[in-house]
């Protein structure tokens, strides 16, 4: 018989518990009701800060939404549980519903703790815990910004949450100062040396830090709201908004009222199977006091959820102990702490590398024989975190110091992780499980392994390690995971791009000579177009210029799109989809004269099909004379900038989307890239241009433009994600310039922006850091490169028509340039021509009455 599991609380751990139960309870022994206080589905609280850097609440969604459509799962939002009746085994909610349970799980999490200081209840004092807290803070700061040139914010608390809150304040455009009661920042996780390095890095971001700063009173401003903080040392800090991030307390009030055993410092006391003092009630996550403590991190919460589910299904799982490793996700600052970070183990040795100039502090804690890794602190450069953390409690190969030296130094030895080493602590995935995904489940790339094991799907900090493990495992199976372009180049496209750019070589022969694997090789259909594409942005020249002509795919070579019968289609550029009646008439006349099949494309322009190679120059002469230019529909390059009609005509439009689309299309036309690029511009939030389905989507707001990146349609549709908000037009263009060129420089061959954003260093955050904060110091270079592209753009069809040498490539036959390809055959359909099928050709050859003709087929209306 189906039993009823009631989960109190709708946070990340509750979500994980439901997910785990539905994954493992194949027979449907448990139906689950989740009673949540917040009015929304469980969301990614760890990523709360990113809500400030522009994402909307939906982007914080966790896991697969279909979980909540499962008939055995019921989620009641906005219905807080107010009482537990342990004798009757029921819970009662605020709305008066009584829910009976066979087993109850408390996953109520914790609440922000506000110290009892006078003024903590004033308007303008916020906590930082939920989406609603964050939204309220955002609203308040935006209201202040309307009347004040500078909004001064203070964060009480210099821990993980406090620093995230400070980053959030800054992202909102407020000044931020962190007031830390103790001697250094993040004192729970890192030592004094690390705290000092962190303070310098945080200062470098423009966030103020005051240490040993105890706030004794929050004073109101005479015009309302907060105005000033009084400090214990007699100092004062003027403020307009205060965020209290002084710590959290477990939400154990229900359990207290139900007389469950409560820990000394709060929390529902549970054993290693997550059972409370009542065998029908478990507690998981931050509300649980397990092994004597409440842990405010998501990974141990997930582990508890797995244990609780296992027990409900008759298993014997035990909580393995809290993994308190943490990694701070404040843009631009890397902090990680794991294991015995303070060296409290008896006899522990510390190896420290500190470079105050570079803002780096790294420490490893080792056993007394200096071999076994016990813990560590990494500030300023946490790149070693992913590979070191799983080595906790194990012997490090070689000299431990090698793991701390900057990249390019001696280099850390390669770590061969034992199978039971945990790689993804969010989802508790071991190295062995990841290897198994490759060896037993046939996964051949990181994406498949992520889907199969869930590794790296939560915080993503282990992804570099997952990538490495997958690569190593595939290599062992003899599957080539080399990033080499092809047999002619051992480099990846991104490496080759850098090599060509830095070396300044401009021809394929030079590229082969400098970077090829074999001097005798003359490339292939993979590397030649890739090199052509690279040279197009490192040393711009016409597609048919000299040796470059030999590198082009037929589409680029004849500047048209090859169709199935060997004929081509022609697409003139129609920037932003805006076309005059005269232009339309010209296109119609050309189509009529050459007997071309016409179709409107998805990119708001017109495709003319069935042109023979020898007709292309004639067709283009007509189009160029009428003012049209190449639409690059054939290129791995900018295709179109789709737009809605915008504020000039639309009743709802707030910005002139057509004007911006035309400007963008003319700016980026002809830009060669690893794959095609499409842009979209919508004039208001109704999004009629479907801009979020594009590589770069721009949506108008009252204040400017929101910029989305990494969307596409096709085989794997993806919505573009928000990169920046409310940009003015100049900043918008500069940001798109950099985004596109950063993509052009670093993407793999035929990799569109969506997978690129997922895989490029740092993901979307990394892209944001590069294009908005210039974290790589390449912005000026990218800007100059785009300026050069815009400067040197020429219509490649016009240039071709002006050069008889280039026109010779369009002959149908080298020895009979006036003879049309006799193999082409067409039949009429719906008033236009289409290629004849094999059956129709055969029938015509047998003399049956099938209307088959060349492209000049006369079509009856």
């Amino acid at each position: 018989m189906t039993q009823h599991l009631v989960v109190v609380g709708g946070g990340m751990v509750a979500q994980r518990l439901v997910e785990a139960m539905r994954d493992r309870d194949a027979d449907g022994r448990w139906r689950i009701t989740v009673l949540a206080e917040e009015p929304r589905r469980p969301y990614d609280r760890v990523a709360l800060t990113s809500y400030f850097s522009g994402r909307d609440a939906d982007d914080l969604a966790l896991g697969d939404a279909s979980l909540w459509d499962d008939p055995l799962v019921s989620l009641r939002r906005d219905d807080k549980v107010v009482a537990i009746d342990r004798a009757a085994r029921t819970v009662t909610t605020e709305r008066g519903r009584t829910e009976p349970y066979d087993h109850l799980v408390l996953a109520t999490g914790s609440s922000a703790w506000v110290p009892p200081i006078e003024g903590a209840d004033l308007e303008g004092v916020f906590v930082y815990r939920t989406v609603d807290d964050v939204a309220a803070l955002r609203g308040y700061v935006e209201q202040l910004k309307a009347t004040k040139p500078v909004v001064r914010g203070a964060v009480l608390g210099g821990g993980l949450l406090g620093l995230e809150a400070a980053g959030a304040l800054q992202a909102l455009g407020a000044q931020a100062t962190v007031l830390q009661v103790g001697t250094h920042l993040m004192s729970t996780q890192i030592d004094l040396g690390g705290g000092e390095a962190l303070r310098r890095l945080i200062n470098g971001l423009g966030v103020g830090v005051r240490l040993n700063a105890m706030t004794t009173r929050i004073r109101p401003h005479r015009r309302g709201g907060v105005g000033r903080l009084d400090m214990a040392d007699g100092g004062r800090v003027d403020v307009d908004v205060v965020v209290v991030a002084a710590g959290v307390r477990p939400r154990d009030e229900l359990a207290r009222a139900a007389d469950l055993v409560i820990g000394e410092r709060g929390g529902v006391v549970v054993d290693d199977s997550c059972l409370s003092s009542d065998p029908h009630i478990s507690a998981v996550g931050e509300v649980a006091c397990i092994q004597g403590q409440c842990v405010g991190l998501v990974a141990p919460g997930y582990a508890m959820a797995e244990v609780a589910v296992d027990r409900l299904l008759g298993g014997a799982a035990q909580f393995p102990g809290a993994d308190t490793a943490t990694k701070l996700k404040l843009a631009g600052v890397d902090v990680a702490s794991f294991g015995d970070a303070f060296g409290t183990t008896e006899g522990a040795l510390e190896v420290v590398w500190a470079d105050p100039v570079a803002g780096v502090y790294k420490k490893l804690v080792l056993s007394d024989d200096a071999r076994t890794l016990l813990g560590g602190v990494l500030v300023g450069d946490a790149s070693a975190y992913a590979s070191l953390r799983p080595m906790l409690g194990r012997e490090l190969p070689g000299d431990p110091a090698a793991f701390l030296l900057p990249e390019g130094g001696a280099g850390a030895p390669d770590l061969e992780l034992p199978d039971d080493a945990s790689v993804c602590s969010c989802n508790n995935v071991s190295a062995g499980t990841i290897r198994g995904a490759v060896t037993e489940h046939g996964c051949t790339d990181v994406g498949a392994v992520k889907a199969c094991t869930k590794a790296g799907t939560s915080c993503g900090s282990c992804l570099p390690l997952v990538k490495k493990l997958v690569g190593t495992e595939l290599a062992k199976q003899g599957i080539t995971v080399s990033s080499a372009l092809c047999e002619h180049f051992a480099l990846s496209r991104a490496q080759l791009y850098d090599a060509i750019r830095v070396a300044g070589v401009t021809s394929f022969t030079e590229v082969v000579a400098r970077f090829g694997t074999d001097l005798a090789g003359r490339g292939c259909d993979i590397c030649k177009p890739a090199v052509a594409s690279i040279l197009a942005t490192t040393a711009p020249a016409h597609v048919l210029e000299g040796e470059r002509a030999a590198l082009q795919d037929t589409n680029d070579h004849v500047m048209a799109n090859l169709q199935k019968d060997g004929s081509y289609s022609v697409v003139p550029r129609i920037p932003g989809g805006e076309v005059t009646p005269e232009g339309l008439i010209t296109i119609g006349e050309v189509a009529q004269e050459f007997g071309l099949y016409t179709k409107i494309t998805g990119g708001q322009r017109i495709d003319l099909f069935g042109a023979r190679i020898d007709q292309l120059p004639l067709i283009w002469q007509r189009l160029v004379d009428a003012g049209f230019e190449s639409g690059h529909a054939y290129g791995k390059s900018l295709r179109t900038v789709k737009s809605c009609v915008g504020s000039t005509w639309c009743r709802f439009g707030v910005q002139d989307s057509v004007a911006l689309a035309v400007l963008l299309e003319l700016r980026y036309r002809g830009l060669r890239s690893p794959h095609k690029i499409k842009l979209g511009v919508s004039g208001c939030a109704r999004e009629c241009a479907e801009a979020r389905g594009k590589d770069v989507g721009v949506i108008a707001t009252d204040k400017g433009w929101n910029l989305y990146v990494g969307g596409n349609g096709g085989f794997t549709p993806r919505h573009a994600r928000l990169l920046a908000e409310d940009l003015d037009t100049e900043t918008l263009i500069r940001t798109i310039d950099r985004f596109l060129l950063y993509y052009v420089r670093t993407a793999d061959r035929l990799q569109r922006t969506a997978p690129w954003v997922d895989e490029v260093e740092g993901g979307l955050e990394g892209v944001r850091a590069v294009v908005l904060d210039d974290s790589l110091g390449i912005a000026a270079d990218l800007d100059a490169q785009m300026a050069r592209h815009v400067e040197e753009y020429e219509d490649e069809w016009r240039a071709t028509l002006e050069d008889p040498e280039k026109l010779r490539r369009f002959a149908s036959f080298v020895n009979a340039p006036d003879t049309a390809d006799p193999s082409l055959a067409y039949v009429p359909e719906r008033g236009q021509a289409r290629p004849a099928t094999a059956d129709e050709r055969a029938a015509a050859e047998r003399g049956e009455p099938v209307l088959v003709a060349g492209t000049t087929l006369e079509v009856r209306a």
Partner: protein
Amino acid sequence: MTVLDTPPAVTATWTAVCRLDDLAPERGAAALVDGEQLALFRLVDDSVLAVQQQDPFCGAFVLSRGIVGTRHVADEVVPTVASPMHKQVFDLRTGACLDPVGKAPVLGLAADLRTWPVRVVDGIVEVGGPAVSDGPAGGGA
């Protein structure tokens, strides 16, 4: 391997097709010889090779528009063309299909290409006929 522009003994007649200068280096060009469509390829060393213009994997007459390159086959660097339609790779000297990319030829066509002997005399490209083979067995021999 024999020298590429040495005519096989069986070739009876040579047809002048075009000047070497009419062919772009490392690209193909279509030619009509005795009513048949050929694809001529001028390699980096100015030698010229000829195969059928029809792509057996799609039936369209397009092979001259493919990308010319090389491929290592058993310690030898083989000149190749990749079909512009679906990227099947062919050995330009023998016509052999080196990579069908998981596809089969259309009904009635062989995966390997017909080849023609080619010689360059005083800057004129000549194609030998009748054709010496229907496939790689005798091609280039």
